[in-house]
């Protein structure tokens, strides 16, 4: 053993161009297995070379050039350039004897595909595959680069865990930011013990001077940068849902092998990215440090220091081809601008509209006027939330749906609206919508208290706003009794009275209709029920409904066909006149 080590030192330090092959081909005095000799050489060679003092000097500029060439080639998906600067890829080329006259193989050579494929497979481990419905972050499942807790990434090929540097410049990061996906700037450089690796015919072991350059990899655009769990979250032991943030920069240590032309390679320097599995737990090449992510070096965007990016995110969301894309964009913006009022406002509107549109698809009643359509669909969800609630119960994840469900919209909407309400309490429309969402989720206490609180704040002169708030309160009271089925609950009569106050206050036909309808609806739960009074109120509601732009006999008829009113108006002849008008 000691003979082998000593001779290796002598051969390696005897000058460039020395050939190692005779060393290991020479008959050994001890008959050791070949693999053991190579393993020992792997392990001892780098160390002995350091001991011998031959560590080589560091040319930071050259290192940086090689690293940048490799990183940008990986980012762009340039398989040929990346392969030609990837040491393991070079090693594979040498083994397959693909170097002809000291040149790289042709760009069409399958070797580049092999090199790219192992990188792609490794990088796939950090692509977030989890579909979280409306909590998805743009660009969404299967495309979002999420480093999680920056734990070492499992590499299936080598059955090992690594923090390989190329993860931080991977093609999926650059895919959505092709012009300038990241920048790489030097931080610190130094030498490492020589890397060792088997010769092409595996008869001997080579060594190459090895240096490292720690770089800052910065992502200029928070709309496209990778994400991870937030500051400090990496250390949490509990599997609690962690706060996610957009990464602004990380430190990455790159290991570069040099002096390679001497060993027959067409290029003098190459990056060590994903080492191969060596014998008995070692790696090929054998190095004391394979580089990669520098633990605890991540910096994150925000909160609230990226106003321009937030604006751009809003614009992209508004121009998105699908509502899911838009919502994923806004989720991302909220990661670095969680208190940006405009983002919250746009997000709340998008979600609210998404729920309304879903309701419209379910009830299939076309309404030309946007204002009536919104009120009609709000009433649709109000009735649904008090009756079967089936569409409000399952999210796309638990229900295995391919698109957001009403429940997804609803439960994503509430925290957004709550954040907006705390930032901008004077935005009464948002708070009215928030009160509706509490009612639709059957959060009865919040549904009652939200409009009651609003009534103390909305100025008396804003009569129409106060009328809308009163309607929210009326529906909250009616909905509570409709769901709980406690017909002696005084809220059913209070609900009627509140709707009556709204009716008396408003001059808007839309609110007049809604108030009259709410009063009639509440009577369905009065014991004893007064069907004549109910008919009178429904007639009033109908009269006001017909004054609203966009109203139609079809949409009015639908108001009588829900699960609360249908059973009454169809069985009692009192309502015959009303039904005849359908």
């Amino acid at each position, binding site marked *: 053993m000691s003979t082998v080590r000593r001779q290796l030192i002598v051969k390696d330090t005897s000058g460039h161009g020395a050939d190692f092959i005779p060393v290991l081909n020479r008959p050994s005095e001890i008959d050791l297995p070949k693999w053991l000799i190579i393993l020992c050489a792997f392990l001892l060679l780098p160390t002995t070379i350091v001991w011998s003092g031959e560590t080589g000097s560091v040319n930071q500029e050259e290192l940086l050039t090689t690293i940048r060439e490799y990183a940008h080639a990986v980012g762009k998906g340039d398989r040929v350039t990346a392969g030609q600067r990837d040491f393991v890829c070079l090693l594979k080329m040498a083994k397959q004897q693909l170097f002809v006259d000291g040149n790289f193989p042709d760009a069409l050579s399958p070797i580049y595909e092999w090199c790219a494929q192992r990188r792609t497979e490794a990088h796939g481990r950090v692509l977030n595959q989890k579909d979280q419905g409306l909590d998805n972050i743009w660009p969404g499942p299967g495309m979002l680069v999420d480093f999680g807790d920056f734990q070492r990434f499992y590499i299936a090929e080598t059955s090992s865990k690594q923090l390989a540097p190329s993860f931080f410049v991977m093609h999926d990061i650059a895919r959505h930011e092709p012009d300038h996906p990241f920048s790489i700037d030097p931080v610190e450089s130094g030498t490492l013990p020589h890397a060792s690796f088997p010769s092409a015919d595996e008869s001997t072991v080579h060594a190459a001077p090895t240096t490292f350059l720690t770089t800052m990899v910065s992502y200029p655009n928070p709309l496209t940068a990778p994400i991870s769990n937030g500051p400090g979250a990496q250390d949490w032991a509990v599997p609690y849902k962690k706060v996610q943030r957009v990464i602004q920069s990380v430190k990455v240590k790159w290991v570069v092998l040099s002096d390679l032309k001497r060993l027959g390679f067409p290029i003098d320097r190459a990056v060590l990215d994903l080492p191969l599995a060596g014998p008995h737990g070692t790696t090929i090449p054998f190095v004391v440090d394979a580089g990669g992510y520098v633990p605890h070096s991540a910096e994150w965007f925000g909160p609230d220091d990226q106003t321009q990016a937030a604006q751009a995110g809003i614009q992209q969301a508004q121009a998105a081809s699908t509502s899911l894309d838009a919502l994923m964009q806004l989720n991302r913006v909220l990661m670095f601008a969680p208190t940006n009022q405009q983002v919250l406002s746009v997000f709340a509107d998008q979600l609210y509209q998404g729920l309304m549109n879903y309701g419209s698809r379910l009830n299939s009643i076309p309404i030309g006027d946007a204002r009536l359509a919104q009120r009609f669909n709000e009433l649709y969800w109000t009735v649904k939330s008090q*009756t*079967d*609630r*089936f569409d409000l*119960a399952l999210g796309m994840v638990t229900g295995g749906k391919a698109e957001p469900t009403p429940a997804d919209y609803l439960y994503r909407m509430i925290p957004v609206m709550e954040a907006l309400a705390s930032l901008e309490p004077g935005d009464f429309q948002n708070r009215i919508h928030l009160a509706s969402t509490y009612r639709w989720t059957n959060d009865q206490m919040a549904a009652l208290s939200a409009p009651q609180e609003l009534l103390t704040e909305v100025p008396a002169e804003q009569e129409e706003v106060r009328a809308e708030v009163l309607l929210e309160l009326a529906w909250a009271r009616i909905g509570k009794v409709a769901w709980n*089925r406690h017909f002696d609950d005084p809220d059913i009569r209070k609900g009627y009275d509140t709707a009556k106050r709204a009716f008396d206050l408003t001059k808007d036909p839309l609110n007049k209709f809604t108030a009259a309808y709410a009063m009639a609806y509440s009577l*369905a*739960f009065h014991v004893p*029920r007064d069907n004549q009074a109910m008919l009178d109120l429904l007639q009033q509601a109908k009269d006001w409904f017909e004054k609203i732009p966009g109203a139609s006999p079809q949409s009015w008829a639908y108001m009588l066909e829900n*699960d*609360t*009113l*249908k*059973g*009454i*108006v*169809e*069985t*009692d002849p009192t309502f015959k006149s009303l039904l005849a008008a359908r």
Partner: protein
Amino acid sequence: MPTPNLEALEVTINIRSREFRPDSLTVTVGQKTRLVLKNLDTELHAFVPVGLLADSHVAVSGNGAPQFAKEGFVRVLLPTRGQTEIEFTPARPGTYPYFCDLPGHVMRGTIVVRENSGMVQ
């Protein structure tokens, strides 16, 4: 010595044209029972038992929406063409009404729980 029958007795109530069919059925104290409720109408219905399942252990399956309160099972909502199965073991003999509480639905029925003469108390 006779022992309680552990195999579930299956009884079915169909809902059609705003009626429970049959509107009366009999089960036995101590006999594990699987009550199948099928809504064959094209509107929402509810099954609201009075007293039958109070303070009882029930297992509910199917696509209905069950509601529970502190006294236990309260009701189940049955969607259009929906079905719900309720497994329970009647504890006390008696005649227990049930109904649909959707406004305007005048739908009632009874479940009679009879003594199990062969069961040792």
